[in-house]
């Protein structure tokens, strides 16, 4: 029997705002425990939540990027539950009226086809605190309590591990490029919970769904789903029903393992948060948030293609946000050199950074100095090897290529008249080469150019020298 997988994904994205969703506590990662906490985050009596403007702007930007309908009124709700990860006894969320609803994202699959995944809702809420579960106790750090989150809930339209991975990657790209989040799954700033069920192909009834948590990379999203689909299929083929449960992905075993059975559905007794008066967002506020949104990866991609990059090159330049910023700064100075900038960044610059274990943020060469090097190479004022020497010096003190070439005495001579006189004198010194050339020995040209390079201490443009040698030999 063939089965079809039904997959829905909930993604929690931590925003990289300065302060928390409802308090002015610092949003932090990796700080000393319990040092970024305001009274509201600890639920001290008398404290009131006040909504963070930047968090709302971020939610609008992501909603817009996901083609969602944006609610111009903000309402918040309490999700009531008793657990140590939120000291208030409830989480403030948007249950009844999410800021974004009914959107979609298009994903591109490995076979070249594309698929539209609809998104049910996007809402803002506050993160819980961090709990470290030790062997015999739990340690609680409130630094994360109250960090702004957006939760994005897909429709159950995803049908495979590959589609799920592409979907999560598309969402990650949007939150990273809109600068809403750093989107690091391994650090928990983008977390996803996946609901997987299977049913016989052609059936319109849903099977029992299993929730998989603890997916800390896009590759693991795909692996966990592929494993889960095959596990459920094996059970059903043996006549064993799938049980409703929460599982986690075990990275070492590469399989999902049971965390807990789901028994009664938890009733969170949602009600409107009475401490936040409904907020009306003006049309201008919403439009400004959209208009000032940083360029999305999909928009950048189109722009790079129009600048002459190939599809692979454009995609490559969208993999790393810091690298991408550097490339954009370069292209801003001279967009006609996009391809040459790309070559340098993905060639010598990346090699230099890797060799020295540096990030592009620590790279000293400014885009205008890189451009000066590219122009000198293009004009033939530097040979390729000379260009490399200039680059090696440029990474140290970020001077212009012209200055460095002057200092090193590297400037390549492309003056045709000067080269011609050198060519003439070298050919005169090696009459045997003229004879060889006339006898069909082409390597005489290489020999003569070599002599010219030697005589000029490598400063003559070899292409021009080569051309003039051939012309001169033919005339003799």
């Amino acid at each position, binding site marked *: 029997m063939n089965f079809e997988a039904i997959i829905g994904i909930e993604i929690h994205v931590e925003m990289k705002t300065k302060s928390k969703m409802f308090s*002015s506590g610092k949003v932090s990662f990796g700080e000393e425990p319990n*040092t970024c906490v*305001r009274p509201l985050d600890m639920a001290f009596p008398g404290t009131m939540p006040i909504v963070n403007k930047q968090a709302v702007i971020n939610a609008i930007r992501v909603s817009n990027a996901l083609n969602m309908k944006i609610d111009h009124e903000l309402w918040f709700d309490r999700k009531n539950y008793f657990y140590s990860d939120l000291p208030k006894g409830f989480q403030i969320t948007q249950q009844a009226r999410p800021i974004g609803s009914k959107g979609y994202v298009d994903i591109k699959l490995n076979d070249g086809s594309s698929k539209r995944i609809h998104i049910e809702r996007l809402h803002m809420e506050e993160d819980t605190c961090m709990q*470290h579960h030790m062997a015999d106790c739990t340690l609680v750090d409130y630094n994360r309590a109250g960090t702004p989150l957006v939760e994005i809930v897909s429709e159950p339209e995803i049908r495979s591990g590959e589609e799920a991975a592409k979907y999560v990657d598309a969402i990650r790209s949007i939150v990273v490029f809109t600068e809403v989040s750093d989107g690091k799954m391994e650090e928990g700033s983008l977390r996803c919970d996946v609901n997987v069920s299977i049913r016989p192909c052609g059936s319109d009834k849903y099977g029992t769904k299993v929730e998989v948590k603890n997916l800390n990379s896009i590759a693991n999203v795909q692996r966990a789903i592929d494993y889960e689909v095959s596990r459920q299929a094996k059970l059903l083929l043996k006549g064993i029903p799938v049980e409703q449960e929460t599982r986690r992905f075990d990275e070492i075993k590469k399989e999902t393992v049971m965390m807990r059975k789901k028994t009664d559905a938890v009733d969170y007794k949602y009600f409107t948060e009475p401490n936040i008066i409904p*907020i009306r967002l003006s049309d201008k506020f919403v439009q400004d948030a959209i208009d000032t949104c940083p360029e999305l990866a999909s928009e950048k991609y189109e722009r790079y293609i129009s600048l002459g990059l190939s599809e692979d090159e454009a995609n490559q330049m969208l993999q790393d946000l810091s690298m991408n910023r550097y490339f954009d700064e370069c292209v801003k100075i001279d967009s006609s050199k996009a391809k040459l900038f790309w070559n340098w960044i993905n060639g010598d610059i990346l090699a230099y950074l890797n060799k020295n274990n540096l990030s592009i943020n620590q790279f000293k060469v400014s885009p205008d100095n890189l451009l000066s090097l590219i122009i000198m190479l293009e004009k033939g004022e530097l040979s390729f090897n000379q260009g490399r020497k200039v680059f090696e010096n440029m990474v140290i003190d970020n001077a212009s290529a012209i200055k460095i070439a002057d200092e090193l005495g590297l400037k390549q001579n492309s003056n045709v008249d000067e080269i011609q006189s050198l060519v003439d004198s070298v050919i005169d010194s090696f009459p045997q080469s003229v004879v060889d050339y006339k006898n069909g020995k082409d390597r005489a040209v290489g020999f003569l150019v070599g002599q010219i390079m030697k005589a000029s201490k490598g400063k003559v443009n070899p292409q021009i020298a080569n051309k003039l040698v051939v012309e001169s030999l033919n005339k003799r």
Partner: protein
Amino acid sequence: MVKYDKALLVKCANNLMFDMSDEQYEVLLKEFDVLTKQMELLGEIDGLENVSPMTFPFDIYTDYLRDDVEEPSLSKDDILRNAKDVVDGQIKLPKVVG
């Protein structure tokens, strides 16, 4: 209205992963009895079915949003002052997950 009896309270307590003594359940049941009677009094008010639920006393809106500015944290000592047990600057609790 839901009928509160001991079985329901035990179920709720167990859902929250704690248990109570018989005496404590007795006290709680008496308290629920008082609460239930008070709610029934409200139910006797005429025309209640025509009143829609409200969250806010006034039908008002705001457009105020807080600027994203960070303010200094409480001191670590203050944060941890009410904690019974502290390990490595974190509050130590009994472990309730597997």
